[in-house]
């Protein structure tokens, strides 16, 4: 069963990366972004489309990440301009509209046929307990952990990080104090978009990668972020890995395997119920 668990690490690493992007946006921009994986899928599909047309792989990746980053930044700019003082629920609902619109646009541009993604590191892997862990999966895992650590350090120990934290807590006050709230917001969205684009690029080579499936990777990412309370990046990374491991282990149980893709929903439901366990019904409502 250990090798079954380990075989879930590549997926878990992708969930962890997307979870980091989700938490980043929630903490810093006050929005639960349901479209983050769609931004990433957009960038990834631009990458593979350019690669199929002859662009060198490395350059195609750079362009793909820039597309994901730019798309996310543009949406962030729209959010900052049109919904500056709205509550987080409203802004989160707006992202659902973004996601649906982008799915429709992507369908027109890319179709819905699965595409084959070339691996980032084609021939390098490491063996652990009988399971080969490809370098791309380890890179995704390392990237998620490193980003979580770097962002944590950045927010605590840099001037801009403190300003961003202030912006997240009191955006109007921060703006009155001269903090460039709108610029920081767009930058945060851009960073989240870049992170979200790397996730499918690293994870797609060993899966049936159609646009819708990659866009819906936001579901396990949200489950991971929820387990991190939408606050702890470290816990989010661990939770993302755990969800990937759980899905992989479920393949070995015929009864559960059929419902494998619903596991993130059960995780979300379980966490929400667990957190409500101490609430008195009337007070909780």
């Amino acid at each position, binding site marked *: 069963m250990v090798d079954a668990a380990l075989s879930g690490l590549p997926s878990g690493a992708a969930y962890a990366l997307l979870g980091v992007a989700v938490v980043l946006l929630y903490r810093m921009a006050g929005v639960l972004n349901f479209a983050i994986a769609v931004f990433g899928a957009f960038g990834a599909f631009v990458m593979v489309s350019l690669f199929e047309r002859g662009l060198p792989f490395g350059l195609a990746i750079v362009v793909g990440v820039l597309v994901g980053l730019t798309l996310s930044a543009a949406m962030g700019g729209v959010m900052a301009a049109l919904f500056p003082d709205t509550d987080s629920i409203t802004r989160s609902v707006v992202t659902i509209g973004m996601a649906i619109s982008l799915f429709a646009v992507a369908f027109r541009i890319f179709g819905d046929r699965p595409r084959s*993604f070339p691996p980032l590191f084609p021939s390098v892997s490491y063996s652990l307990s009988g399971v080969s862990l490809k370098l791309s999966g380890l890179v995704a895992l390392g990237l998620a952990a490193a980003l979580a650590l770097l962002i944590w350090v950045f927010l605590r120990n840099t001037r801009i990080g403190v300003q961003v934290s202030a912006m997240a807590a009191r955006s109007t006050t921060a703006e009155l104090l001269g903090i460039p709230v709108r610029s920081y917001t767009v930058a945060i969205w851009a960073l989240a978009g870049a992170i979200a684009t790397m996730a499918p690029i690293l994870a797609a080579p*060993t899966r049936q990668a159609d646009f819708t499936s990659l866009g819906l990777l936001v579901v396990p990412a949200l489950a991971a972020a929820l387990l991190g309370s939408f606050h702890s990046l470290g816990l989010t990374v661990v939770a993302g890995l755990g969800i990937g491991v759980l899905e992989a282990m479920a393949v070995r149980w015929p009864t559960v395997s059929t419902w494998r893709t619903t596991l993130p929903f059960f995780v979300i439901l379980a966490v929400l119920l667990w957190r409500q366990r101490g609430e008195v019904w009337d007070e909780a409502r």
Partner: protein
Amino acid sequence: MLLAAACGDSGGGGGDSAADGSTTSTASNDTTATTAGSGDTTATTAGSGDTTVPAAERPVVKVGSVNSLTGPVPFPEASQAAAAVFERYNNDPTGKLTIEYTIEDDGADPALATQAARKLVDDDNVVLMAGGASLVDCAVNGALYDDNGLYAIQGTGVDISCFTSRNIAPINTGPYAGLTASLFFTSEILGHDSICYVQFDAGTQRQPLTDAVQRWTDITGKELTSFDFYAPGDDFTPFVTKAIDSGCTAVFEGGLDATAIAWNEAVAGQGASFDTVHFTSAYTAEAAQAIGSPATPTYANSEFEPFTDLESPALADWVQLMNDNGIPLTSFGEGGYLAALAAIQVLESAGIQPGDDTGTQRQKVEAAVLGMEPFESPMLGSPYVFGDAPAHNPNQASKFVQLVDGEWTTVTDDFIVLPDVK
């Protein structure tokens, strides 16, 4: 033909039971042209006489198809190939009819499929459906076609309704007979005793695929080591490690060409050593180019004469027609091409006259379909005939190809033919 005799009842559409389960090799790949398109460059068909009908005097016959040109699993080549055949026929001075062919896209959406079929039936007044390839057309529109006296020669039948309807007969082997043949190839030709099966989960196809597996069990007396479904977007790594741990020496992977590429990547990443066999949907030039030299021996099912064997005389006309029209060379294109040729044979034998209204034409076409002579082609392992059975899966034959150094190579000289299906 290589006959796969059944040891008991066969599921997935019914079939005869044979006694002993032995296999017999007979002569194969008859390259003599028995129908239009098999090596000929002109669209002459069985039943065509010596009289040349001026184009202006030819009765106009309307043929249609509903296709999943967009959506999760698009099949554009089948209808494109059929259109090319009909266009060439219309330009052939020896033709007796003018065929107006209308292609509709359903986007794999049942609602759109219904609209498309309604348009063809009620507005365009088609008298025959031919060359179509859709995920939902058969299930959604089969009854509509039946109510209006229409018959469908599908270029690519996919869902179970295509193979269990009175008025629909796909020209391709289909996923169910193709699966049984592929498992037979894996166990009896390649000699594997421990086989895992990993299948893309399309929901409604679970039971018919399970029935197809049972048919293989009935034929060979063997059973699968494991049988798993994967969802869209699933990572293949856990399935590969499960196959390794289960001791499988071969895996049948049921997806598309893109999934075959991803599967190979997962297999390579885990250092697996089992053989892999794919559906015909993986048998594409794109998959061959992307995979190159596969991590382990990799095979695919071919429902018709393998299209990569470009030197085969059986494919000459088809290859030229596809190249002239810029249509990719795929199995789906073969299906559309053959379906259109079969449709021309049927239509020419129907005795349609100028001035026949839609209802009269449909009646004549129905009689011609039900009484059609078997349509034969060296591209087919089984003669195609409609008949009046309650269900149709006339093509019970498959060949197999192996991916070697970026090219698909035919590894079965003979078609593997499953027992007749009633």
